[in-house]
């Protein structure tokens, strides 16, 4: 198996950041707010590896820094510290040192992101098909007919009825909006897909459909994914490995069934015990 992503020492601090920030925050102090300068240490010293075709789970409660990790990878946020290497075919990109144009290119062509809120991932003032076309235009398709055909293919793969292609996603149900987001993210066939709480707030039958779709994508396209969720059921069904975050730090990592059935860290034990 080949490595696709290698993250080392990733940190993100919101605020001035004083020398004491990292020493006085974290699970031991049960806070991520520095009491000296009031900076918020969203994540600190995060290291992880992702291999081709695997799904890695990031779990933890609200505010633990789960989303900050995927947002920095997707260039939505600028990290305070740390390195990330992305391996793509024979190329290797150091994500936080390449220039903005290169970052934009990776974001548009090689990464896909599905946000918890469809408002972040979709443009509601254009049609569902238009949303996908927008991303396709950034890749190699320019012919109107080709773009429309490909958009239709993507929507049908994510089970969005073709007759709704020309409607605004604002008119769709929550589950369908998420499926349009997934179709959009997949438009350029990215080798890396980031999923941020994609099933939160959806009812159970709709959740099942989306989880099912995610596994199908992994199986058919071999896409590597990072799945951020606070739902242990989602972690259990989707992921092979999981990391557990608390106050912006990794407190435990391991095979998903091991983390859920034989958690080692006190916090993970508490998290698992309160969920089952």
């Amino acid at each position, binding site marked *: *198996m080949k490595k696709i992503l290698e993250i080392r020492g990733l940190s993100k601090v919101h605020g001035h950041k004083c020398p004491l920030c990292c020493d006085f925050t974290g699970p031991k102090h049960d806070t991520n707010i520095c009491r000296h300068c009031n900076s918020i240490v969203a994540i600190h010293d995060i290291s992880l590896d992702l*291999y081709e075709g*695997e799904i890695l789970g990031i779990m933890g409660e609200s505010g633990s820094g789960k989303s900050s990790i995927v947002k920095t990878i997707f260039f939505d946020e600028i990290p305070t510290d740390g390195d990330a290497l992305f391996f793509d075919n024979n190329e290797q990109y150091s994500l936080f040192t390449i220039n903005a144009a290169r970052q934009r290119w990776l974001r548009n062509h090689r990464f896909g992101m599905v946000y918890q809120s469809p408002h972040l991932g979709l443009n509601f003032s254009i049609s569902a098909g238009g949303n996908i076309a927008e991303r396709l235009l950034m890749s190699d398709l320019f012919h109107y007919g080709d773009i429309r055909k490909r958009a239709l293919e993507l929507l049908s793969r994510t089970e969005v009825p073709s007759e709704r292609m020309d409607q605004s996603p604002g008119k769709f149900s929550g589950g369908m909006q998420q499926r349009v987001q997934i179709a959009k993210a997949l438009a350029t066939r990215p080798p890396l897909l980031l999923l941020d709480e994609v099933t939160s707030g959806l009812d159970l*039958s709709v959740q*099942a*459909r989306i*989880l*099912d779709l995610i*596994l199908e994508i992994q*199986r058919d396209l071999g896409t590597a994914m990072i799945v951020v969720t606070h739902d242990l059921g989602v972690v*259990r*069904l989707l992921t*092979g*490995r999981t990391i557990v975050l608390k106050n912006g730090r990794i407190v435990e*990592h*391991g*095979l998903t*069934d*091991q983390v859920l*059935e*034989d958690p*080692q*860290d*006190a916090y993970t*034990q*508490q998290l698992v*015990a309160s969920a089952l």
Partner: protein
Amino acid sequence: MNPILKVERLSKHFLLHMRGVRVPSCDGVNLEVHSGRLTALTGPTGSGKSSVLKCIYRTYLPSAGQILFRNGNEDIVDMASASEHTVLELRRRDIAFVTQFLHCLPRKSALDVVAAPLYDQGVSQKRGRDCAAELLSRLSVPERLWDLPPATFSGGEKQRVNLARGLIARPRLLLLDEPTASLDPLTSERVVQLINHMKSEGMAMLAIFHHPELVAKLADNVIKLASPSDGNLAPEASL
């Protein structure tokens, strides 16, 4: 002949931080499993039989001891300390675990649930489903159920779906945790036949059975675990 699996002085205890207690599960377990043979784990409830299987599959992290698995390239891998990716790769190719409970996605048909390990290896859906159908029919799961999601099945039907999924990719080592607990005698006999068939094809198995007569019928050797309070592991007995 070299064993495919050799467990040495395996111990497992759980440290429950919230309560500040250490719960012992199994202690000083030694066992060997050979290709084409079935080793049965017996012992009273609470003696740690399931924990031994889960440690071997790395669902539990062993507290002490070694779990030496001989992979397809004749390399020895210690499951207790192997990297996460090594374990995932062994689970994909070599080691399968059939538990009493079936975890699967709600919308998948029984055929796809059973064929999933083959899909993971890149087998086409058509071929995967054919293999799944053959196994399900050998286990007398009625054909009318094959296209339905197993969530609605009876306990015994689910158990056979689970067993079929464990067997389909022909793992080199199969871990079985009470695979016949809720089956009637006739169906149980079909399972016995299938297990014997897989043994004759060279599959190594380590199993926990609910019924002593199944141990007598299927096991080539028996490892008896004592309850943790009773002290040491009881000596190995050969049938």
